[in-house]
């Protein structure tokens, strides 16, 4: 099994007629994702790669059953789109969009809690169930099926680490990008919990980075409740305080969120922490060899 998605999860793509939505829809279809419909207001009745386009989610659900929403719309419309999907009863939303206003992210998260929906992102590469399907933008050729759960705050670094694991013959059960904004809608701890419950996952890899306190919170959960081994890497050891490193959330300030503090608390919780990305696959290999 996988977390959050199944091989036949049915997806609606919001913003399917845009440049990125169009291209990524093609790539997902090629990877095996079941895309039932797309939504672009004002473009209802068209088709993209054979996928029917509707003006709204409510029109989609009249004709299709939908398990997940994938959102590519521009940042100013992200909140509205997530609200629309949740109101139509969609329980899993993957919000790829970058630069979503933080106040909007807080409202999306609050509504997701109220509706018992899961929103991944914003600024996430999405979810991939290697070899089966993906809801997102990750290049399929960097992943392979297996038993490592992968959670990441970064997109491209996830590809690298998944690629390293595959090179050593270690596949992934599911890889999830949680996003790297100051407020994300699903926490690292929630995702760890899902992997802890997932039978197919034997070990979890966390790819963290400077900023925020997600890793610190997760360390408490790992120490208290997790039985499965956890390996982590934290990017940004050489980041100077007060400098924002690309991601809106990647900033060390007010004495919080440094790589050193994250590494320390994770180690205290029994997590094996890699010094460099390359070391992740080596640590994973040695743990799996010992355990199996």
């Amino acid at each position, binding site marked *: 099994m996988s977390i959050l998605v199944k091989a036949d999860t049915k997806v609606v793509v919001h913003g399917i007629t845009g440049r990125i939505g169009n291209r990524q829809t093609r790539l997902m279809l090629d990877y095996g994702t079941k895309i039932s419909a797309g939504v672009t207001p004002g473009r209802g009745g068209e088709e993209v790669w054979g996928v029917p386009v509707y003006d709204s989610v409510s029109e989609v659900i009249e004709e299709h059953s939908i398990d997940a929403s994938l959102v590519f719309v521009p940042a100013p419309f992200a909140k509205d789109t997530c609200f629309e999907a949740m109101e139509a009863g969609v329980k899993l939303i993957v919000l790829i969009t970058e630069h979503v206003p*933080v106040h909007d992210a807080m409202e999306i998260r609050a509504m997701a809690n109220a509706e018992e929906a899961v929103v991944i992102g914003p600024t996430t590469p999405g979810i991939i169930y290697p070899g089966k399907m993906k809801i997102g933008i990750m290049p399929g050729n960097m992943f392979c099926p297996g038993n490592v759960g992968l959670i990441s705050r*970064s997109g*491209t670094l996830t590809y*690298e680490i998944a690629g390293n694991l595959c090179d050593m013959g270690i596949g992934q059960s599911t890889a999830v990008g949680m996003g*790297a904004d*100051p407020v994300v809608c699903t926490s690292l701890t929630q995702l760890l919990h899902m992997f802890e419950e997932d039978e197919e996952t034997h070990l979890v890899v966390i790819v963290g980075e400077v900023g925020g*306190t997600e890793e610190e919170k997760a360390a408490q959960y790992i120490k208290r409740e997790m039985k499965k081994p956890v390996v982590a890497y934290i990017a940004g050891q050489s980041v100077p305080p007060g400098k924002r490193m690309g991601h*809106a959330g*990647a900033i060390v300030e007010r004495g919080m969120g440094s790589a050193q503090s994250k590494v320390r608390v994770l180690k205290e919780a029994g997590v094996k922490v890699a010094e*460099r990305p390359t070391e992740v696959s080596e640590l994973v290999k040695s743990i799996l060899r010992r355990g199996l």
Partner: protein
Amino acid sequence: MRIHEYEAKKLFREFKIPIPRGGLATSPGEAHRVAEEIGLPVTIKAQVLVGGRGKAGGIKFAEDLGEVRELSCELLDMDIKGYKVESILVEEKLEIERELYLGVTIDGSRGCPIVMVSSEGGVEIEETARNCPEKIFSREVKPSQGLRAYQARKLAKKLGFKGKPMLQLAGVISSLYQVFKSYDALMAEINPLVMTRREDLIAADGVLEIDDSALFRHPELGIEAQDRIPDELEREARKIGVSYVNMDGDIGLICSGAGLGMATMDMIREKMKPANFLETGGGMTRELMAGALRVVLKKGNLKAVFINIYGGINPIHEGAKGIADVVREENVKIPIVAKALGNLQEETWETLQGVGIKVVKETQTARAIEQLFRTLEKGCG
């Protein structure tokens, strides 16, 4: 993005938060005029976009007009943590009875705003949090409900306020939350909120950091985030649409993705020194990559450029063309090592190799950095 104190105070006033009488000046003459108008003594404060201004000598007190001119000159000549002082705020000097702290910020892990109040104003809130955390009272705010008036009163009471001053303080707390919410702030802070000898509450200072991603909703502010960046290269990169951080080394860096960029920077640091951090984000085009390489090359004395990109959301084959354009046009002589993987990687490699760029096809960034290091060693020997 942080805005200036005088700008923050203007917004505070819109929401009925009392601020000191005063005015902005960009010359000693103007400062003189403001001081004459509001009366002496005055406080003169450098307007810079960084914290710790007081400790850096950016706040002065003047008793007479001669002093106003002299101190204004001094301040307008200053450079505080890389920010040149271009304007000063001249305000009435308050008669302070006590100083409080008010702040609204975002608790990322709880995903909601948090309001903080403390009886210890005038010192950094981190210091209070460390030394006497029991003197900070805070509460979460539900994003959909906002801060209710009774919640603000409760916080005011926790600071020991009663009667009319309690209501007045609660009003300021509510207003500060309104400013925070209305202007998409990441942080709104009044430190100190002064209670004068006449029991009036006045915001002696004001910090407002606005979410860059929400600036599109606030054209009324007339602020372009890029204009507020002091570093020239960082400002230029921002205009192109990439994140650039100027650093002190000599290896230029271009990465797609912030996490990958930071990891790459960490690894380069083991043996070499990065000249910059540059992250393209997910909107790569031929022009964007050309612009990115141009910004990186603008910094003189580079030994090499290292490129680390993935084709996920980004069309790296298009980006590669932009890189090749610049290498050809500017006749770039320093070595460029590139690692590019993902969708359309083969086409990307071909374009890069076509202009003499060393392409590394392995997954491990560490290997690519070794290749970079070896290339440079050869160059030196």
